[in-house]
């Protein structure tokens, strides 16, 4: 088990970097409706943070903190959130996935047309959908890599 773990320098740097990568991932997800990026890209960045931990600490140690079952629950919650936002579309407004948040205080502002600096509080349901997709991608990609790493380790 200890042979999977890399040297102290690597593990320390990985632990230090982990929160920063995750914050960057969250930034990319949250600004998905304004700048390039969005749920999948941000989720992939977040999953890469977990992959970095797997490389540095070994799959088994990561598994203790975040087992693939926990990750797949996280993923399911993401998928559920997406579908629920879609369903709220035809309960609160006209059709599936219709943007029922326009004009509301949360993400409801309508930005001016043309070149503008961008406003986080806009986009309606799009930021919510980005968050849902981000959760799903983090959970999905991380659990795929985790399971592959675990299975690869067994072979030895």
């Amino acid at each position, binding site marked *: 088990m200890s042979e999977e773990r890399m040297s102290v320098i690597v593990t320390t740097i990985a632990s230090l970097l982990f929160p920063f990568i995750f914050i960057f991932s969250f930034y990319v997800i949250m600004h998905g409706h304004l700048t390039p990026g969005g749920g*999948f890209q941000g989720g992939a960045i977040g999953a890469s943070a977990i992959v970095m931990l797997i490389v540095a600490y070994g799959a088994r140690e990561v598994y203790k903190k975040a087992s693939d079952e926990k990750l797949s629950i996280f993923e399911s919650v993401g998928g559920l959130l997406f579908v629920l936002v879609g369903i709220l579309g035809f309960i609160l407004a006209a059709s599936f996935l219709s943007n029922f948040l326009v004009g509301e205080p949360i993400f409801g502002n309508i930005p001016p047309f043309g*070149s503008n600096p*961008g406003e986080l509080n806009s986009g309606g349901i799009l930021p919510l959908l980005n968050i849902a997709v981000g959760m799903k991608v983090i959970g*999905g*990609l991380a659990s795929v890599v985790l399971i592959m790493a675990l299975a690869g380790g067994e*072979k030895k």
Partner: protein
Amino acid sequence: MIYNIPFYTVVALILIGLYAMLFKRNLIKIAIGLTILESGVNLFLITLGYRKEGVAPIYTNLPSGIDVPDKMVLPVPQALTLTSIVIGVAVLALVLSITMMIYRHYGTLDSRKVRRLKE
């Protein structure tokens, strides 16, 4: 003429991908062929949306003097490509995990030896 280069690349990538999938015996190489084929199709989609001297289709902080949206590249093919990349990731993950299981059962990645199903 120079604008046709992406299309030649598309054809080359698709042919290389198909060649790898049809004639390579190693299962990992078949997976690589799949991704090359997929990049060819994705490149084709992206190239369709390109406009001469276009800018990225993002409203935040456009370069000055650009009249919206005539000088923007088409965003729809980019959205399609993104979807196809996401699907590609899922397919590749599944192909590779199935390849791992095949290696565990058969002890080889040679497709000529992985044929328990043939009568």
